[in-house]
């Protein structure tokens, strides 16, 4: 599961996204760009690496964004 956590001055919310949904999204994005079967393979590898890393490092923060308006967005495993 990849989690997107959005914290704004008005409140906060977490959006959990299962790996299969991330995979599906990336595959569709690749299809839309007219990519080859090689890209499908790389998406599968990417998801595999993320899953493996998440098992060893639960809640690992991949991306942490703080903007000047006070919004904080984190994407974690």
């Amino acid at each position, binding site marked *: 599961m990849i989690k997107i956590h959005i914290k704004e001055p008005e409140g906060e919310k977490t959006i959990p996204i299962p790996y299969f949904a991330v995979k599906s999204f990336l595959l569709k994005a690749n299809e839309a760009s007219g990519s080859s079967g*090689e*890209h499908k393979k*790389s998406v599968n*590898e*990417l998801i595999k*690496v*993320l899953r*493996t*890393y998440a098992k*060893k*490092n*639960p*809640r*690992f*923060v*991949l*991306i*942490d*964004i*703080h*903007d*000047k308006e006070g919004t904080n967005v*984190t994407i*974690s495993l």
Partner: protein
Amino acid sequence: MTIGQKLADMRRRAGLTQDYVSEHLGVTPQAVSKWENDVSCPDITLLPEIAKIYHTTVDELLSSEATKEVAVIDEKVRKDPSEMVLHIHVEEHGDKVKINLPLALVVLMLENDSMGSFSIGNIDLKKIDFKSILSMVHSGVIGKLVEIESANGGTVIIEVE
């Protein structure tokens, strides 16, 4: 550097949140925040576990010296590169972006040539030679490997831990 600053720095380098650390150690998130703000210190019995999850030693945690910016790690004590993390910190016009990429993911992105599409704001990361960075890491070099200040006031820092 105070112990609190050091704890905060090491936690961020390990890519962990205060919530994760507090839950892992069985303390409150407020306790972790107090340690990092030098309001209080962690119990001595927690130090080995803190050192473990921050990928460091108790000696290093208690040292008053700042974490070395760059170090060459002996082959015998080197971590497996697949367990290492590449940190990219970008700061531009008051916005801060921190990206923690497991090295295994960087290798995959380089193999598939997808680092080329990586940009944050006006800062284009494809100009950074990630292959050379990986090569340095495989030679045992860790720490702050890249620090760039752009003409428009933005900064990019790349560290490997």
